[in-house]
């Protein structure tokens, strides 16, 4: 079963990598083919199968450590991307999201040990874990897609400022569309990020007797919440649009990544298992 998991992870990696190449090729050739989308869906199904196999191996939902949450997080990113692509008919976003997914699964497969199964510690054996992590997957997955859109905006904006007439400028969606979609996705994800903080706090109260301990993971999740709250405030209340707000969307996702990876390695605390 452990070998099957490794094989599925490698197959998912191949799927996402192939999709990345196809999306990049589409961007530069102007091809409107949907093959890249179908390959992404196959990769996503393999990603789902990896989660199922991991669940069978652990005997519970795979949410207990960094590898398991990472696999679920990746699943969330690609799921949100597929929904966005079908809803807004915008497959150029795949040029940025799929390479990100490829790097992510490479890191999970080769730097973490997918075959290592450790029993879940008693504090994690709670239904709050499912609610807390599931809301995090939705929020962080959506923020990853908003990050890709913000990057596209900044690249296109920079190329226009430089007077570039390259094919890339024409192939990328209009700045207004990228800006609006980034906002919509952050607007959608923000309540879930609030739920991540709230469910984590309620659970901590039950498990540790403290709803807030200023643990680095908690503090960084709060920092992320503040960054996105600032983004929404300046856009809604002060009417800031364009470059400044897009930079903030990028900074927000950097905070998400630091909360997930950086805090675990650099600032250990109560959440040292994740």
């Amino acid at each position: 079963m452990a070998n099957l998991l490794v094989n599925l992870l490698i197959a998912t990696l191949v799927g996402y990598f192939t999709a990345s190449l196809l999306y990049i090729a589409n961007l530069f050739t102007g091809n409107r083919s949907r093959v890249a989308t179908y390959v992404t869906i196959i990769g996503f199904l393999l990603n789902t199968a990896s989660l199922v196999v991991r669940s069978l191996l652990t005997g519970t939902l795979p949410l207990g450590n960094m590898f398991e949450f990472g696999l679920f997080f990746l699943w969330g990113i690609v799921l949100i991307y597929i929904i966005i692509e079908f809803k807004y008919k915008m497959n150029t976003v795949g040029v940025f999201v799929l390479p990100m997914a490829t790097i992510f699964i490479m890191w999970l497969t080769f730097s973490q040990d997918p075959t290592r199964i450790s029993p879940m510690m008693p504090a994690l054996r709670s239904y709050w874990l499912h609610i807390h992590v599931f809301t995090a997957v939705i929020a962080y997955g959506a923020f990853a897609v908003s990050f890709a859109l913000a990057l596209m905006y900044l690249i296109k904006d920079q190329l226009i400022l430089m007077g570039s007439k390259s094919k890339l400028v024409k192939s990328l969606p209009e700045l207004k569309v990228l800006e609006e979609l980034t906002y919509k996705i952050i607007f959608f994800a923000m309540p879930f990020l609030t739920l991540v903080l709230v469910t984590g706090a309620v659970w901590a109260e039950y498990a540790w007797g403290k709803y807030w301990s200023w643990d680095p993971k908690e503090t960084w999740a709060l920092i992320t919440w503040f960054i996105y709250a600032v983004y929404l405030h300046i856009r809604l209340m002060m009417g800031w649009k364009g470059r400044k707000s897009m930079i903030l969307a990028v900074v927000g996702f950097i905070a998400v990544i630091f909360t997930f990876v950086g805090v675990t390695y650099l600032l250990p605390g109560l959440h040292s298992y994740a």
Partner: protein
Amino acid sequence: MAIIAVASILSTLVPVAPNETRIFVKAVLALPKILMLLLCINLLFCTTRRLPGVLRKVTQDISLENEEDSFQKNSYDTFKIKDAVSHENFIENYFKENKYKFKKKSSGESIQFIAQKGKLSLIAPHLLHVGLAIVLIGAVFGSYFGAEGRLSAGVGETAKVPVEVAENMVVKVNDFKTIYDEHNNIDNWQSDLTVSVDGKEPVQGVTKVNHPFKYKGVVFYQSAYGYFHTVSVETGMGEVERTIRNRAMDKMLSSVLGQFFVIDKAKDGVNVILFETHDKYKSIHIKKGETVEFPNGKLKYLGTEPYTVLTVKRDPGTSIVMLGFLIMSLTSFLFWIGRYREVRVTLDRAKKSMMLKVSSKSKAIKEEIIEELTSKK
């Protein structure tokens, strides 16, 4: 908020020593909390000032009664139309299809519409601010009127709850056990307790990780556990019986009559690691009643009893904080209703004109509505 984010980043990066005394470090750690408090005070003032007006608008029923006055006050855009009757149907259908709440009034040659949508979104930011402020108020309240402490006791023993948490409250530990799942992994740790105040009304309860026990406002959390190992050591210096207290998973070095050893709970007995002048001499698993020998004597294992460590807390602010969290969670989804917009339309049959005013904080929404309502040729 940006400053709070920066201050919070700093607070996680500064190295903190146990029992930190440096003023600079303490200031860095306190800064985000102080700023959060200031933000909440600011939010409360802002919301208190604006909430009554918003509530009035939200609870007020949609009306065309004073529309003549509004017509005078508001600047309308005027568009030419071909046929007022078909336009009237078009506008009515538009409001119905887009789920607007609307009213219509005909008087003489004019037909007036007023339509609103997303009223609840007006209140959402204020409720979110209130929720956040309630969380902070609860936290401050708890820090002033709450208390926390720890107690530990072996099975069959009693321990006093720290007096700052509850006066004259005593806990008797009836049992402590480790619960295993079907794969033989640790599922939980459970303490069976009897709690009483002044020896009256004893109440029995169970506390385990994620399932605290509550009694008279005091919450008991399963925090840690350990073992009392009783051993008898015999060396050239004599023979002595000792009970060694070891916290679980914490392999502490013990010394009895000059003999150093580590004793650790294992299945059906204990693991003993003997040391000879700082070097590991022997590691052995022994059962109750068995003896292990070393160059200058012997150690006999007499038995093990578990003890439990409980965190006890009395925090009247927790319910307030949870209420704040609930408000924050619910209202954060209220934003999804969409931004508030109000549309006023007056059709003039005689002049074949449509006067239109769209109110919304979003320019994009305004433009979209105007475009859609003027799309009929």
